[in-house]
């Protein structure tokens, strides 16, 4: 289940990377904002479905805002991508602390009825866990459909391979990038909601912590190709579940990065990318 959330978060991160070539260090804040939005809406309406929608929308809007106000400005100025990468770290710092100012730094308890656990095959799952798994699969299927079988998806892939060449063929790269970020934000916001729901508590810093695992998983899988990233995330997620169960969950982050270090040393291009793509900058 954690693997499913990790996969959602990682695929969104990978999409952001694909169209702008920027590893967005403020990605975790999309999840955090999603969690807060879901919490507020659920407090107001008591409806889980509305809460999920609000989470996705909040994530999408924040991603769009980040892209149009900051990233696009840097890209148009011709700033090296390393500089943009650093800027997104500053941005993450800003968003985290704006959330602290609005909501305070304390943990917010977010409990919803998990439902009775039931046996499915070898797994013991609660109703919430079922919903998370099913929704993750549905979202993946929809994303796959969009990326592989629509005109927009084709444009997205073109921009991700070569932005300038895509523009020469009449693709409005800026619109494609903005839309992709919005789409990624929707997925990330929703991931934030299910993460908060499954952990049961969150704070302004919770997205960043989870983002670090996302980052390890995404880089291990291979950046920029949405579905290889996803495969990596699922593997890392499952590996973490095992280490968490057999050793200790508090070392999860350390394990995630140990996996990353191993992958980087053995197969620096990522596990599921074609050999031609090098990670050399």
């Amino acid at each position, binding site marked *: 289940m954690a693997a499913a959330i990790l996969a959602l978060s990682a695929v969104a991160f990978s999409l952001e990377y694909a169209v702008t070539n920027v590893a967005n260090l403020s990605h975790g804040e999309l999840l955090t904002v999603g969690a807060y939005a879901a919490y507020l809406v659920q407090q107001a309406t008591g409806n889980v479905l509305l809460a999920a929608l609000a989470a996705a929308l909040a994530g999408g809007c924040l991603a769009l805002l980040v892209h149009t106000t900051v990233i696009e400005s840097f890209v148009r100025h011709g700033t090296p991508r390393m500089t943009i990468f650093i800027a997104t770290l500053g941005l993450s*710092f800003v968003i985290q602390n704006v959330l602290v100012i609005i909501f305070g730094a304390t943990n917010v308890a977010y409990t919803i009825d998990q439902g009775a656990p039931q046996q499915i095959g070898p797994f013991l799952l609660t109703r919430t866990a079922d919903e998370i798994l099913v929704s993750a699969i549905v979202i993946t299927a929809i994303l796959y459909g969009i990326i592989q079988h629509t005109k927009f998806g084709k444009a997205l892939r073109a921009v991700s391979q070569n932005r300038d060449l895509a523009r020469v063929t009449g693709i409005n790269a800026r619109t494609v990038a903005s839309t992709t970020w919005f789409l990624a934000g929707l997925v990330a916001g929703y991931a934030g909601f299910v993460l908060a729901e499954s952990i049961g508590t969150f704070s302004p810093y919770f997205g960043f912590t989870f983002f*670090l695992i996302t980052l390890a998983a995404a880089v291990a899988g291979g950046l920029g190709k949405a579905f290889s990233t996803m495969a990596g995330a699922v593997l890392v997620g499952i590996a973490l579940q095992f280490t968490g169960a057999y050793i200790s969950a508090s070392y999860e982050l350390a394990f995630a*990065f140990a996996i990353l270090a191993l992958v980087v040393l053995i197969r620096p291009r990522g596990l599921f990318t074609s050999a031609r793509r090098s990670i050399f900058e």
Partner: protein
Amino acid sequence: MSQYLTSVLTEGSIFAIMALGLNIIWGWSGDFDLAFYGYVALGAYMTLVLTIGRPIAPAEYILGLQLPYPIAVLAGVAASALMGLIVGLIALRHLRGIYFSIVTLGAVYVVYVMAGQYVPLFDGYNGLSGLFDPMASTFGINYNNYQYFLLGFCFAIFLIIFVLTERLSRSRFGLALRSLRDDERASAAFGRDIYRLKLRGYVLGAAIGGLGGGLFAAYLSAFNPSAWSPIETIVIYASILVGGKGNGKGVVLGVFLISVLLQESTRFLPQIPNQPELVLALREVIIGAVLVLFLRFRPQGILPERRRVDPDRGDDGGGRPGATNPRLVDDLASSGSEPIAG
């Protein structure tokens, strides 16, 4: 008031030392290292476990010696340098750009998690405390004057580090690191051993970070995981960026503006009841925003790094085109023939 000023200046000197260390890694060598605060923390932790003596139950930590403070700091520096070497050996070999940053970010979080969760190491989240007024008895300084002594001590070390890094910056080593930053391939073609040079710069930076940590431990007299987080590095980055990346004087100016002036000015904002973290959060919002704005509009900082210009490149007429810069020729002759690192 003078007590307050002394405290601020001491902290400023310590931050300046850290920033000068990070400037070697980021400013000269061009690597965006996110592990840096880990070296500061390790320096501080090591200094503490080597000076505060045996742990009293229920506290537990490694070593627990009572060495003289300067020796403990040197051991802390050595520990940080060693960790820098290990991280550098892995991260600098093949990785550049964001991949280097991500792996160093991972490394520092591993250290952070270990320091916080593995209690026998540095007593977990309780952290270490009890380093009171180191060297006071040796020099016979009483309690009232101690803070002036500490300021003098930290400032003297800051001056030493500043002079050393300024000299090193103009040395062959400093120039070679910059050449890697500006064009790794060209530099390799001139026979530079990229990996080894970068590694040397990295370890040196980490060691200076550890030194800053050792002094910080004396200033705070305690250290625990809630006192630092890996993201703290961003404040040092903001200082370097605002002042002028790669320029020692700029870095010091940046530390003064960000770590001293900004930090202290927000302290005078009115406190809002029940919201103790508000002012702190506001300060961090400002630091993050300053970082983003400077990156966008003035990435070279207030005092930009002075670029060396090849005297033959200008239109002075007389010179042959190419390498008649004596320094370059000299460098070429002495650089040896080690294989180029991939």
